[in-house]
C-alpha cells in the first residue's frame, strides 16, 4: 500500500481503536497467551505479553497495527522464544473461509487486477485490455451467498462439536473473521491438552476425511456379512445412514444395491459424502497449537472490517455489524468492476473514477487494493 493510502487507513483504524473501547477486550487467560501484531508494510512483532484490556488498548493506540493476533495456546512464559515458552494447552480453533468452499459465485466477484497498470476486471483474461500486461493479482470480495454458505458450514461444525465431540454450546464462540468467513474457538478442558497430531485427527473427523467402508459395515470380502448403520445412530454413522436412506420406502432396495456393488463402490460413495457433507474447515489452523490467531475486536487489514462475535448467527450480517469505521465522506479514485454492499448501501461498479463515499467504504476499497486516496 502506498504511503498516502497507509496514512489514511491507519488514521481510520486509530479512530476506531480510540472510540470503541467497548469492543476491545483480551480473551480469558490473557496473561498466559502470546500476542503479536503487524503494522502496515512491515513485519510481524511476536512474543508479546499483554495482561489486560488496559495494556491492550495502550498498544493499539500507540502502534496502530494493521492486524492484531493472540495465541490459542497458554504458556508459562508467553514472552519467551517459542522453545522456552512451556506450552500448557491450547483452545481448539477453527477457520471457515468462503474462498475454500468451491462456490460458483466466486468467479462473479473475484477481481483480476493488472499488476502493472492496476486496471481491474471480472473473469480471467490472458492480458490486460489497457496495457497488454499478462500479470494479474486476484482480489477477492465477498457476496451474500459466500456468507450464507459459510454460515451453513458453521452450523454443521457446531452440530459435530456438540453431538459428536461432546462439547457444550456455551463452550463454543463464533466470530466473523473480519474478511471472508468465520472463526470458532472452543474452550473445553478435556480437549485443550491435545497435541497437533491429535488435532489433525479431529480435523479429519470433522471433514469426514479418511472414512473406510469397513467402519460403515461394508467389508472387503464380498462373502462377509454387511451391516449398514441405521438412521438413528449418532455421529457420522447416523449421518451417512440418513443420507443413504433419505427415503424410507426405498431403503431396502438401496441396502441391496450397496451389498451388490461391494466395497470399492461404497468407498466412492463415502468420498462423495465427504464432498457434500464434510465440514470445510482449514485443517492447518485446527492442527496448529502455536498459532497466533486474529484477536477479536480488532480490524482485519484485508477489508477494514472487524473480527466480532456472532451471538445470533442466522440474523448476523457482517456487512452491517462488522463495518465499524467512521462514515464521514472521503474522495477516492476507484477501479472496482463489481458491486460492494456495506451498511445496506451499494457501491460500484466503478470504472477508474473519482467517487465520494463514506470512510468505511473507502477503507474497504483501499484495503482490497481497488482504489487510491486523492
Amino acid at each position: 500500500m502506498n504511503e498516502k493510502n497507509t496514512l489514511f487507513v491507519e488514521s481510520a483504524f486509530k479512530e476506531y481503536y480510540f472510540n470503541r473501547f467497548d469492543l476491545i477486550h483480551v480473551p480469558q487467560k490473557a496473561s498466559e497467551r502470546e500476542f503479536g501484531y503487524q503494522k502496515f508494510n512491515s513485519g510481524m512483532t511476536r512474543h508479546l505479553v499483554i495482561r489486560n484490556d488496559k495494556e491492550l488498548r495502550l498498544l493499539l493506540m500507540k502502534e496502530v497495527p494493521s492486524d492484531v493476533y493472540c495465541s490459542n495456546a497458554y504458556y508459562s512464559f508467553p514472552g519467551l522464544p517459542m522453545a522456552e515458552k512451556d506450552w500448557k494447552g491450547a483452545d481448539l480453533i477453527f477457520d471457515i473461509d468462503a474462498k475454500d468452499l468451491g462456490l460458483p459465485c466466486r468467479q462473479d466477484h473475484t477481481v483480476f487486477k493488472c499488476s502493472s497498470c492496476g486496471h481491474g476486471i471480472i473473469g480471467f483474461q490472458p492480458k490486460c485490455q489497457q496495457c497488454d500486461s499478462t500479470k494479474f493479482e486476484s482480489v477477492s470480495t465477498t457476496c451474500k451467498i459466500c456468507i450464507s454458505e459459510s454460515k451453513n458450514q458453521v452450523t454443521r461444525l457446531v452440530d459435530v462439536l456438540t453431538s459428536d465431540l461432546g462439547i457444550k454450546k456455551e463452550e463454543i464462540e463464533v466470530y466473523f473473521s473480519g474478511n471472508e468467513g468465520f472463526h470458532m474457538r472452543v474452550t473445553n478442558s478435556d480437549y485443550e491438552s491435545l497435541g497437533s497430531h491429535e488435532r489433525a485427527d479431529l480435523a479429519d473427523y470433522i471433514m469426514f476425511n479418511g472414512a473406510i467402508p469397513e467402519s460403515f459395515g461394508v467389508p472387503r470380502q464380498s462373502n462377509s456379512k454387511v451391516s449398514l448403520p441405521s438412521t438413528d445412530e449418532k455421529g457420522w454413522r447416523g449421518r451417512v445412514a440418513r443420507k443413504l436412506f433419505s427415503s424410507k420406502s426405498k431403503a431396502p432396495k438401496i441396502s441391496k444395491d450397496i451389498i451388490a456393488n461391494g466395497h470399492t463402490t461404497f468407498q466412492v460413495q463415502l468420498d462423495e459424502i465427504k464432498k457434500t457433507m464434510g465440514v470445510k474447515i482449514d485443517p492447518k489452523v485446527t492442527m496448529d497449537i502455536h498459532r497466533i490467531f486474529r484477536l477479536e475486536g480488532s480490524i482485519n487489514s484485508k477489508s477494514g472490517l472487524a473480527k466480532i462475535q456472532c451471538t445470533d448467527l442466522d440474523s448476523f450480517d457482517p456487512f452491517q455489524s462488522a463495518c465499524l469505521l467512521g462514515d464521514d465522506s472521503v474522495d477516492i479514485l476507484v477501479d472496482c468492476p463489481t458491486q460492494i454492499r456495506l451498511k445496506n448501501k451499494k457501491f460500484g461498479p466503478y470504472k477508474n473514477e473519482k467517487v465520494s463515499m463514506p470512510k468505511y467504504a473507502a477503507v474497504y476499497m483501499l484495503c482490497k487494493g481497488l482504489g487510491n486516496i486523492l
Partner: protein
Amino acid sequence: MLKIGVKDLAKYPFLTEAGEYLRDTGLSLEQLGHSDWKPIVEKAYGRIVVASSGQIYNSDLDALDNDSELLSFIVAIILLKSAGMATLIKRFSLAESRRAERYLQQDLYASREKKNLELPLKIIRDIFSVNVLIDNDEFVIKIPDYVKRSVHFHEKEWKLVNRRISNGYVYLSAHETVRLIRAELGEYINTRIQSVNISSIPESFRQRVQDLVALAKKFSDTTFVSSEYPPCVKHGIEVLEKGENLPHSGRFLLATYLLSKGQTVDQIAPLFKNAPDYNERTTRYQLEHISGSSGSGTKYQCPSCEKLRSESLCFAIPDCNGIINPVQFGKKRKTS
C-alpha cells in the same frame, strides 16, 4: 475395597500390590539367596531369556503355583537391574506387557458377563489414567483420551472417523481397549523396573547376572538409529521398537530407505523383530525381494514423499522443505 488375590498378582506382577504381598510374606532378599530358592532364580532367568528372544513367557495359572509366578518376576527384575543392560530391560518390559495384555483382555472379556470388571478397569485407571466406562456390552472412553493414544497407530480403522462416537465418547471392544494402552503398559513396566533400587545381591544370583550381560551383547548391534534419518523413517523405527504394528507400506519405506543408504539385509532384518507378527524367514525373504537379490531381480525404490503423505506416513519438519523423496533428506541442497 477391591481384593487383589495372589492369582491376580501372578497375572499382573507389576502392580504396587505385589510389593505389599511380598512384604506380608516376610521373605527377604537374603533368604532368596538360599539354595532352596534356586528354582525361582532359574525360572526368573528363563523368563528374561524368553522375553529377549521376542516371545511371550507363558504361565499356566491353573497348574502352577502363583507364588512362584510372582516371585520369579521380582527376581527377574533384580537380575535385570544388577546386569544393568538397557536393551534387556526394554525387551523384558515389552514381553511382559504383552503377557499382561493377554490377561487384561481376557479379564475384560470374561468378567463383562459377570459384571465384575473392577480389577481390569482399576488397572487401566491407575496405570494409564484413563477412565473406561461400560455402556451395555461395550467399553467407552472419552474422545481426547482416545485420540492421544490412537494417533500412534497407523491403520485407518483407528482414525476417529472410523469409530463409533456419541456425545464425546468412543466405543471400543475389549480387544481394542487393551490394544489402545499396550504401549503405555510396556513403558509403565519399564519405569517400574528403572525405579527399583538394589544395593547388593545374594552370591547365588551372580552367575545368572553375568549370563545376562553376555546375552545382552548379542543384541547391542541392532541399534543403528541415526539422527540423520528423515522423520518418516525415524517414526517407522520407533513404531517397530515399541512392538507396534507398522502397516506394510511403512515397512516397505524402511526397507527401501535403509537399503538405499547401503545397509544390508542382515543389518535391517533385526529391526522387524519386535513386530507382533514377526517371522524371521518371511522377513528375510521379503527384504531380499525388495533389495533385488532374489526373485525378479528388480531393486525397489524408496516411495516419494507425496505417496507417503497420502498414506499418512509423512511427518514433515522444516528440514523436509524442497525434497520429494526421503532419500534426499539431509543432503545439502544446491544454492540456486
